[in-house]
């Protein structure tokens, strides 16, 4: 069973969001997504300062099987990419919601995002199966 923490928000494309005390938002891929991808072997994260619009690909995660884009759930400016993943991409497999974070972003003023509650996200992955 996939782990869906109750204190996060989610997207239909399997990203999670955590709002940090300073107002920035931490983004990663869900436990369900890492499980579907399999062992991750290469991750490309964005540089701080990069401006993103909502829905724009900001990272590439590659497993043994395939490469996948990860989409920014919200418009804003990247404040940090998780550089540690270059040496340890498997942290996404073992700790998707912790050490496996991909970027931190400061949302643009007035930016909005269509997000799913944990319950809605659980429903989505139950419908997708596996």
């Amino acid at each position, binding site marked *: 069973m996939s782990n869906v923490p109750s204190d996060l928000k989610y997207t239909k494309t399997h990203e999670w969001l955590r709002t940090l005390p300073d107002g920035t938002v931490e983004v990663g891929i869900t436990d369900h997504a890492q499980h579907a991808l*399999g*062992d991750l*072997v*290469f991750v490309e994260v964005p540089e701080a300062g990069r401006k993103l619009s909502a829905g724009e690909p900001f990272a*590439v995660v*590659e497993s*043994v*099987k*395939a*490469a996948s884009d990860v989409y920014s759930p919200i418009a804003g400016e990247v404040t940090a990419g998780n550089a540690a993943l*270059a040496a340890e991409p498997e942290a996404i*497999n073992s700790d998707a919601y912790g050490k496996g974070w991909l970027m931190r972003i400061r949302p643009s003023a007035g930016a909005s995002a269509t997000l799913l509650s944990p319950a809605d996200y659980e429903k989505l992955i139950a419908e997708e199966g*596996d």
Partner: protein
Amino acid sequence: MTRRTPLFDLHQKLGARIVDFGGWDMPLQYGSQIAEHHAVRRGAGVFDVSHMCVADLKGARVRQFLQSLLANDVGKLKVPGKALYGCMLNETGGVIDDLIVYFLGESGFRAVVNAGTRDGDLVWMRRHAAAFGVDILERTDLAMLAVQGPEARGKAASLLSPPGATSALALEPFFGREIDGWFVARTGYTGEDGFEIMLPAAEAQRVWKALNSAGVTSCGLGARDTLRLEAGMNLYGSDMDERTSPFESGLAWTVALEPRERAFIGRGALEAIRARGPQRKLVGLLLEGRGVLRSHQKVLVPEAGEGEITSGTFSPTLERSIALARVPAAAGASAQVDIRGKLLDARIVRPPFVRHGKALVSPEVI
């Protein structure tokens, strides 16, 4: 409707992720694909390869039949039990399939062909077998397990009777033999030592569980693919097909043009290709930096033109990305690969990348 092997229920019980492979429901992985890969390089793993087609060939002229059917020469098979790898070609020299044939002695030969091509292969073989009076019997009553890794033979032999174990452990590489009602062959697709075991389908689940109990890791098609690619072995349909000849597929060593009088299907086309020189070749690629090579990525070769990756992956043993690629014959030692619009440097190397657990490309020069 996909097909299932006699082990399907057990794969599900073991928690395998099941995928469609050539029309078969097969296990991709049971847990971590990389852990399964390392189990085979360092210990022992077992794969369900029952989706492959085992066919027994019988008839007074069966040897002549295979000598006309295959680009490699079964005339090399003089001792019962000896196996030969080769290609079955069409008239234009393209590869219909690659296969292994075992010489069984008086009772004929046994061929093992790929799952995705089995139906077409059988039609082709039967069409040509008629003239030689050869019968082709598909052995759907058998399951096939590949037990691979440095500890594989010892662990598999522990399931046999004492004389059976002695007999199995005495097998030379690329030999097979009937032992205790199984056909045990010292062959494989991983670059490691091991056995491929053909056994009655009804025994397959019991044997799989006994292998697990003996410390053999269940491995899926995911690990099978990274292992064979590290070992520099081709995958039919990816690295060669009916449009490519063995010469352009790294398989010249499987083409027996001697003796000259042996007429086999595709011979004329191969001689013509050889006379003008193959335009392309299949090479190994080692990505210099970070990233993962994937099939169909474009390969740019300085002053020689363009090629394409036919199989690419991340090598768990080398912790680098490796690939097989078809490139212009004039390609030298280096190339660039277009990965999502970025050109990354790659080194052209001669496969295999890994054999018997050892890297054959040294990390310090990467």
